[in-house]
Protein backbone atom coordinates (compact mmCIF):
# COMPACT_ATOMS: atom_id res chain seq x y z
CA UNK A 1 0.00 0.00 0.00
CA UNK A 2 1.45 3.41 -0.93
CA UNK A 3 1.72 6.33 1.45
CA UNK A 4 -1.48 8.34 1.86
CA UNK A 5 -1.73 11.50 -0.20
CA UNK A 6 0.07 14.45 1.39
CA UNK A 7 -1.54 17.66 0.31
CA UNK A 8 -0.14 20.24 2.76
CA UNK A 9 3.30 21.77 2.74
CA UNK A 10 3.94 21.63 6.48
CA UNK A 11 6.11 18.80 7.70
CA UNK A 12 4.04 16.28 9.59
CA UNK A 13 4.88 13.72 12.21
CA UNK A 14 5.90 10.33 10.81
CA UNK A 15 2.64 8.41 10.33
CA UNK A 16 2.34 4.86 11.68
CA UNK A 17 2.03 1.95 9.28
CA UNK A 18 -0.39 -0.92 8.96
CA UNK A 19 -2.93 -1.68 11.66
CA UNK A 20 -1.55 1.10 13.88
CA UNK A 21 -2.49 3.57 11.15
CA UNK A 22 -6.10 2.42 11.47
CA UNK A 23 -5.99 3.01 15.22
CA UNK A 24 -4.42 6.42 14.83
CA UNK A 25 -6.93 7.40 12.17
CA UNK A 26 -9.87 6.70 14.44
CA UNK A 27 -8.27 8.03 17.65
CA UNK A 28 -8.75 11.47 19.17
CA UNK A 29 -11.11 14.21 18.25
CA UNK A 30 -10.30 14.57 14.59
CA UNK A 31 -11.39 13.71 11.06
CA UNK A 32 -10.99 9.98 10.62
CA UNK A 33 -9.89 9.68 6.99
CA UNK A 34 -7.14 12.23 6.51
CA UNK A 35 -6.71 13.86 3.16
CA UNK A 36 -9.72 12.10 1.71
CA UNK A 37 -12.27 14.49 0.16
CA UNK A 38 -15.54 14.01 2.05
CA UNK A 39 -17.58 12.98 -1.00
CA UNK A 40 -15.62 9.75 -1.35
CA UNK A 41 -16.25 8.15 2.08
CA UNK A 42 -19.86 9.35 1.88
CA UNK A 43 -20.40 7.47 -1.36
CA UNK A 44 -18.56 4.45 0.04
CA UNK A 45 -20.81 4.40 3.11
CA UNK A 46 -23.89 4.59 0.89
CA UNK A 47 -22.49 1.69 -1.14
CA UNK A 48 -22.03 -0.36 2.05
CA UNK A 49 -25.70 0.17 2.86
CA UNK A 50 -26.61 -0.85 -0.69
CA UNK A 51 -24.42 -3.93 -0.26
CA UNK A 52 -26.55 -4.91 2.72
CA UNK A 53 -29.71 -4.54 0.66
CA UNK A 54 -28.48 -6.65 -2.24
CA UNK A 55 -26.89 -9.04 0.25
CA UNK A 56 -30.27 -9.53 1.93
CA UNK A 57 -31.91 -10.24 -1.41
CA UNK A 58 -29.27 -12.70 -2.53
CA UNK A 59 -29.16 -14.50 0.81
CA UNK A 60 -32.96 -14.81 0.93
CA UNK A 61 -32.84 -16.16 -2.63
CA UNK A 62 -30.34 -18.73 -1.41
CA UNK A 63 -32.57 -19.69 1.55
CA UNK A 64 -35.65 -19.95 -0.66
CA UNK A 65 -33.87 -22.03 -3.28
CA UNK A 66 -32.42 -24.38 -0.65
CA UNK A 67 -35.77 -24.96 1.00
CA UNK A 68 -37.94 -25.71 -2.01
CA UNK A 69 -38.88 -29.34 -2.49
CA UNK A 70 -39.82 -28.68 -6.12
CA UNK A 71 -36.74 -28.58 -8.40
CA UNK A 72 -35.46 -25.11 -9.28
CA UNK A 73 -35.70 -24.20 -12.99
CA UNK A 74 -32.41 -24.74 -14.82
CA UNK A 75 -31.00 -21.26 -15.57
CA UNK A 76 -29.00 -22.51 -18.56
CA UNK A 77 -32.23 -23.51 -20.26
CA UNK A 78 -34.42 -20.69 -19.01
CA UNK A 79 -32.00 -18.00 -20.17
CA UNK A 80 -30.88 -19.54 -23.44
CA UNK A 81 -31.45 -17.99 -26.82
CA UNK A 82 -32.14 -19.71 -30.12
CA UNK A 83 -29.35 -18.69 -32.49
CA UNK A 84 -28.78 -20.23 -35.94
CA UNK A 85 -31.05 -23.13 -35.02
CA UNK A 86 -29.02 -24.01 -31.94
CA UNK A 87 -29.81 -23.41 -28.31
CA UNK A 88 -27.06 -21.21 -26.86
CA UNK A 89 -27.23 -21.15 -23.07
CA UNK A 90 -26.90 -17.84 -21.24
CA UNK A 91 -25.96 -15.97 -24.42
CA UNK A 92 -27.84 -12.81 -23.56
CA UNK A 93 -26.45 -12.85 -20.03
CA UNK A 94 -22.89 -13.21 -21.32
CA UNK A 95 -23.40 -10.24 -23.63
CA UNK A 96 -24.89 -8.22 -20.79
CA UNK A 97 -21.87 -9.04 -18.61
CA UNK A 98 -19.45 -7.87 -21.30
CA UNK A 99 -21.44 -4.68 -21.83
CA UNK A 100 -21.34 -3.83 -18.13
CA UNK A 101 -17.63 -4.64 -17.75
CA UNK A 102 -16.89 -2.43 -20.76
CA UNK A 103 -18.89 0.36 -19.16
CA UNK A 104 -16.78 -0.02 -16.00
CA UNK A 105 -13.68 0.28 -18.14
CA UNK A 106 -14.86 3.47 -19.84
CA UNK A 107 -15.85 4.85 -16.43
CA UNK A 108 -12.39 4.23 -14.96
CA UNK A 109 -10.86 6.00 -17.96
CA UNK A 110 -13.32 8.88 -17.56
CA UNK A 111 -12.22 9.40 -13.94
CA UNK A 112 -8.59 9.42 -14.99
CA UNK A 113 -9.13 11.91 -17.82
CA UNK A 114 -11.30 14.00 -15.50
CA UNK A 115 -8.40 14.54 -13.15
CA UNK A 116 -6.27 15.54 -16.12
CA UNK A 117 -9.02 18.13 -16.78
CA UNK A 118 -9.43 16.84 -20.34
CA UNK A 119 -13.07 17.88 -20.64
CA UNK A 120 -13.81 16.55 -24.10
CA UNK A 121 -12.44 13.05 -23.53
CA UNK A 122 -14.05 12.81 -20.11
CA UNK A 123 -17.40 13.86 -21.58
CA UNK A 124 -17.32 11.24 -24.34
CA UNK A 125 -16.17 8.51 -21.98
CA UNK A 126 -19.01 9.34 -19.59
CA UNK A 127 -21.49 9.28 -22.48
CA UNK A 128 -20.06 5.94 -23.63
CA UNK A 129 -20.54 4.58 -20.11
CA UNK A 130 -24.14 5.84 -20.07
CA UNK A 131 -24.88 4.34 -23.49
CA UNK A 132 -23.47 0.96 -22.44
CA UNK A 133 -25.52 1.14 -19.24
CA UNK A 134 -28.68 1.95 -21.17
CA UNK A 135 -27.93 -0.96 -23.50
CA UNK A 136 -27.69 -3.23 -20.49
CA UNK A 137 -31.07 -2.07 -19.17
CA UNK A 138 -32.58 -2.56 -22.62
CA UNK A 139 -31.35 -6.14 -22.75
CA UNK A 140 -32.63 -6.78 -19.23
CA UNK A 141 -36.04 -5.40 -20.28
CA UNK A 142 -35.99 -7.74 -23.28
CA UNK A 143 -35.19 -10.62 -20.91
CA UNK A 144 -38.15 -9.70 -18.68
CA UNK A 145 -40.50 -9.44 -21.66
CA UNK A 146 -39.40 -12.83 -22.96
CA UNK A 147 -39.85 -14.57 -19.60
CA UNK A 148 -43.20 -12.92 -18.87
CA UNK A 149 -44.33 -13.97 -22.32
CA UNK A 150 -43.29 -17.53 -21.52
CA UNK A 151 -45.39 -17.52 -18.36
CA UNK A 152 -43.03 -16.56 -15.54
CA UNK A 153 -44.91 -14.78 -12.75
CA UNK A 154 -43.84 -13.88 -9.22
CA UNK A 155 -46.08 -16.69 -7.98
CA UNK A 156 -45.47 -19.44 -10.54
CA UNK A 157 -43.65 -20.47 -13.70
CA UNK A 158 -43.91 -23.38 -16.17
CA UNK A 159 -40.61 -24.99 -15.25
CA UNK A 160 -40.18 -25.49 -11.53
CA UNK A 161 -40.22 -23.96 -8.08
CA UNK A 162 -42.76 -21.19 -7.72
CA UNK A 163 -40.28 -18.88 -5.97
CA UNK A 164 -38.11 -18.55 -9.08
CA UNK A 165 -40.14 -15.70 -10.56
CA UNK A 166 -40.27 -13.51 -7.48
CA UNK A 167 -36.56 -13.96 -6.81
CA UNK A 168 -35.67 -13.17 -10.39
CA UNK A 169 -37.86 -10.10 -10.77
CA UNK A 170 -36.93 -8.69 -7.36
CA UNK A 171 -33.16 -9.06 -7.72
CA UNK A 172 -32.83 -8.06 -11.36
CA UNK A 173 -35.47 -5.37 -10.93
CA UNK A 174 -33.59 -3.66 -8.11
CA UNK A 175 -30.33 -3.99 -10.02
CA UNK A 176 -31.83 -2.63 -13.23
CA UNK A 177 -33.27 0.31 -11.32
CA UNK A 178 -29.84 1.09 -9.90
CA UNK A 179 -28.36 0.95 -13.40
CA UNK A 180 -31.05 3.27 -14.75
CA UNK A 181 -30.51 5.82 -11.99
CA UNK A 182 -26.78 5.56 -12.67
CA UNK A 183 -27.32 6.29 -16.36
CA UNK A 184 -29.30 9.43 -15.50
CA UNK A 185 -26.59 10.69 -13.14
CA UNK A 186 -23.88 9.86 -15.66
CA UNK A 187 -25.58 12.12 -18.18
CA UNK A 188 -25.92 14.88 -15.58
CA UNK A 189 -22.22 14.70 -14.67
CA UNK A 190 -21.26 14.51 -18.36
CA UNK A 191 -23.19 17.72 -19.08
CA UNK A 192 -21.50 19.47 -16.15
CA UNK A 193 -18.11 18.40 -17.48
CA UNK A 194 -18.94 19.57 -21.00
CA UNK A 195 -20.12 22.98 -19.85
CA UNK A 196 -17.04 23.50 -17.72
CA UNK A 197 -19.01 23.77 -14.47
CA UNK A 198 -16.35 21.75 -12.70
CA UNK A 199 -13.51 23.99 -13.84
CA UNK A 200 -15.29 27.16 -12.78
CA UNK A 201 -16.73 25.62 -9.62
CA UNK A 202 -20.28 26.58 -10.56
CA UNK A 203 -22.94 25.64 -8.00
CA UNK A 204 -24.94 22.59 -9.02
CA UNK A 205 -28.69 22.50 -9.75
CA UNK A 206 -29.60 19.76 -7.29
CA UNK A 207 -27.82 20.84 -4.13
CA UNK A 208 -26.31 24.21 -4.95
CA UNK A 209 -22.85 22.99 -3.98
CA UNK A 210 -19.81 23.80 -6.06
CA UNK A 211 -18.45 20.91 -8.07
CA UNK A 212 -14.97 19.83 -8.89
CA UNK A 213 -13.58 16.82 -10.70
CA UNK A 214 -13.96 14.66 -7.60
CA UNK A 215 -17.62 14.21 -8.51
CA UNK A 216 -16.52 12.22 -11.56
CA UNK A 217 -14.68 9.85 -9.25
CA UNK A 218 -17.66 9.69 -6.88
CA UNK A 219 -19.91 8.85 -9.85
CA UNK A 220 -17.37 6.22 -10.81
CA UNK A 221 -17.63 4.57 -7.41
CA UNK A 222 -21.40 4.22 -7.81
CA UNK A 223 -21.06 2.85 -11.32
CA UNK A 224 -18.43 0.28 -10.39
CA UNK A 225 -20.69 -0.81 -7.52
CA UNK A 226 -23.48 -1.48 -10.02
CA UNK A 227 -21.06 -3.68 -11.99
CA UNK A 228 -19.96 -5.37 -8.77
CA UNK A 229 -23.54 -6.33 -7.89
CA UNK A 230 -23.97 -7.77 -11.38
CA UNK A 231 -20.86 -9.95 -10.85
CA UNK A 232 -22.58 -11.48 -7.81
CA UNK A 233 -25.99 -11.81 -9.47
CA UNK A 234 -24.40 -13.40 -12.55
CA UNK A 235 -22.56 -15.95 -10.39
CA UNK A 236 -25.33 -16.80 -7.92
CA UNK A 237 -28.49 -16.56 -10.01
CA UNK A 238 -27.53 -17.43 -13.56
CA UNK A 239 -24.57 -19.74 -13.21
CA UNK A 240 -25.20 -21.65 -10.01
Amino acid sequence: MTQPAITGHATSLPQPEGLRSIVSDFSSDQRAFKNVPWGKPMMWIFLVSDTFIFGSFLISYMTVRMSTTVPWPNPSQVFSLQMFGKDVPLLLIAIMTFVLISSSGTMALAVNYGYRRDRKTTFWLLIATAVLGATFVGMQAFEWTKLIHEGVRPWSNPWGAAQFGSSFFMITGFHGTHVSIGVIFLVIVAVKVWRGDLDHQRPGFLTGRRGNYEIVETMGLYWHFVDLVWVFIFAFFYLW
Partner: protein
Amino acid sequence: MTQHDSHHTAPAVVHAQGQQHPLGIYFKIWGLLFVLSIASYMVDYFHFQGLLRWSLIITFMLLKAGLIVAVFMHMLWERLALLYAIVVPPLLLLVLLGIGALEGDYTFLTRGQFFTPAATPAPAVAKPQ
Protein backbone atom coordinates in the same frame (compact mmCIF):
# COMPACT_ATOMS: atom_id res chain seq x y z
CA MET B 1 3.66 18.68 -5.06
CA THR B 2 5.76 15.54 -5.21
CA GLN B 3 7.10 14.71 -1.80
CA HIS B 4 10.38 12.85 -1.76
CA ASP B 5 10.62 10.89 1.42
CA SER B 6 12.85 8.16 2.67
CA HIS B 7 9.63 6.16 3.08
CA HIS B 8 8.77 6.31 -0.62
CA THR B 9 10.20 3.62 -2.81
CA ALA B 10 8.58 5.18 -5.86
CA PRO B 11 7.21 8.70 -5.42
CA ALA B 12 3.51 8.71 -6.27
CA VAL B 13 2.45 11.77 -8.25
CA VAL B 14 0.04 13.46 -5.89
CA HIS B 15 -2.42 16.18 -6.70
CA ALA B 16 -4.75 17.95 -4.35
CA GLN B 17 -7.67 16.61 -6.36
CA GLY B 18 -6.76 12.95 -6.45
CA GLN B 19 -4.14 10.38 -7.16
CA GLN B 20 -3.56 9.47 -10.77
CA HIS B 21 -2.17 6.32 -12.22
CA PRO B 22 -0.94 5.48 -15.71
CA LEU B 23 -3.80 4.37 -17.94
CA GLY B 24 -2.17 1.02 -18.68
CA ILE B 25 -3.27 -0.57 -15.45
CA TYR B 26 -6.94 0.09 -16.20
CA PHE B 27 -6.65 -1.60 -19.59
CA LYS B 28 -4.84 -4.58 -18.08
CA ILE B 29 -7.46 -5.09 -15.38
CA TRP B 30 -10.20 -4.56 -17.98
CA GLY B 31 -8.71 -7.39 -20.03
CA LEU B 32 -8.36 -9.57 -16.95
CA LEU B 33 -12.03 -9.04 -16.13
CA PHE B 34 -12.98 -10.15 -19.64
CA VAL B 35 -10.85 -13.29 -19.26
CA LEU B 36 -12.46 -14.10 -15.90
CA SER B 37 -15.94 -13.54 -17.36
CA ILE B 38 -15.19 -15.88 -20.24
CA ALA B 39 -13.88 -18.45 -17.76
CA SER B 40 -17.07 -18.13 -15.67
CA TYR B 41 -19.16 -18.64 -18.78
CA MET B 42 -17.09 -21.69 -19.74
CA VAL B 43 -17.98 -23.30 -16.40
CA ASP B 44 -21.58 -23.43 -17.56
CA TYR B 45 -20.85 -24.09 -21.24
CA PHE B 46 -18.83 -27.20 -20.46
CA HIS B 47 -21.42 -28.36 -17.91
CA PHE B 48 -19.12 -28.68 -14.93
CA GLN B 49 -21.08 -30.09 -12.02
CA GLY B 50 -20.96 -30.39 -8.28
CA LEU B 51 -18.19 -29.08 -6.07
CA LEU B 52 -15.91 -28.20 -9.00
CA ARG B 53 -18.63 -26.04 -10.57
CA TRP B 54 -19.47 -24.17 -7.39
CA SER B 55 -15.88 -23.60 -6.30
CA LEU B 56 -14.94 -22.29 -9.77
CA ILE B 57 -18.00 -20.02 -9.88
CA ILE B 58 -17.16 -18.58 -6.47
CA THR B 59 -13.44 -18.23 -7.18
CA PHE B 60 -13.97 -16.35 -10.46
CA MET B 61 -16.65 -14.21 -8.82
CA LEU B 62 -14.40 -13.21 -5.91
CA LEU B 63 -11.48 -12.48 -8.25
CA LYS B 64 -13.63 -10.23 -10.43
CA ALA B 65 -15.15 -8.50 -7.41
CA GLY B 66 -11.73 -8.02 -5.83
CA LEU B 67 -10.25 -6.51 -8.99
CA ILE B 68 -13.15 -4.11 -9.44
CA VAL B 69 -12.99 -2.92 -5.83
CA ALA B 70 -9.21 -2.72 -5.61
CA VAL B 71 -8.34 -1.12 -8.97
CA PHE B 72 -11.40 0.43 -10.59
CA MET B 73 -12.73 1.70 -7.26
CA HIS B 74 -9.23 2.72 -6.26
CA MET B 75 -9.29 0.91 -2.92
CA LEU B 76 -5.77 -0.41 -3.41
CA TRP B 77 -4.43 3.10 -2.96
CA GLU B 78 -6.75 4.34 -0.23
CA ARG B 79 -6.02 4.71 3.46
CA LEU B 80 -6.08 1.44 5.39
CA ALA B 81 -8.69 2.85 7.78
CA LEU B 82 -11.11 3.54 4.91
CA LEU B 83 -10.47 0.12 3.40
CA TYR B 84 -11.23 -1.70 6.63
CA ALA B 85 -14.24 0.52 7.39
CA ILE B 86 -15.76 -0.42 4.03
CA VAL B 87 -14.71 -4.05 3.55
CA VAL B 88 -15.27 -5.49 7.04
CA PRO B 89 -19.02 -4.76 7.50
CA PRO B 90 -20.08 -6.62 4.33
CA LEU B 91 -17.99 -9.59 5.48
CA LEU B 92 -20.36 -9.80 8.45
CA LEU B 93 -23.03 -10.73 5.89
CA LEU B 94 -21.42 -14.16 5.95
CA VAL B 95 -23.12 -14.61 9.33
CA LEU B 96 -26.51 -13.96 7.70
CA LEU B 97 -25.53 -16.40 4.97
CA GLY B 98 -24.85 -19.10 7.55
CA ILE B 99 -28.16 -18.43 9.28
CA GLY B 100 -29.95 -18.52 5.92
CA ALA B 101 -28.34 -21.84 5.07
CA LEU B 102 -29.38 -23.37 8.40
CA GLU B 103 -32.92 -22.06 7.94
CA GLY B 104 -33.12 -23.30 4.37
CA ASP B 105 -31.97 -26.78 5.29
CA TYR B 106 -34.42 -26.95 8.20
CA THR B 107 -37.35 -25.82 6.06
CA PHE B 108 -36.42 -28.31 3.35
CA LEU B 109 -36.28 -31.21 5.77
CA THR B 110 -39.51 -30.16 7.46
CA ARG B 111 -41.33 -29.88 4.14
CA GLY B 112 -40.05 -33.30 3.18
CA GLN B 113 -41.39 -34.75 6.37
CA PHE B 114 -44.82 -33.15 6.54
CA PHE B 115 -45.72 -32.48 2.94
CA THR B 116 -44.80 -35.81 1.36
CA PRO B 117 -47.06 -36.47 -1.66
CA ALA B 118 -50.00 -38.84 -0.95
CA ALA B 119 -48.80 -41.33 -3.58
CA THR B 120 -45.89 -42.56 -1.48
CA PRO B 121 -46.82 -44.78 1.47
CA ALA B 122 -46.36 -42.26 4.23
CA PRO B 123 -44.95 -43.65 7.45
CA ALA B 124 -47.48 -43.08 10.21
CA VAL B 125 -46.66 -39.71 11.74
CA ALA B 126 -47.64 -39.94 15.39
CA LYS B 127 -50.23 -37.26 16.02
CA PRO B 128 -50.08 -35.72 19.46
CA GLN B 129 -53.11 -36.78 21.41
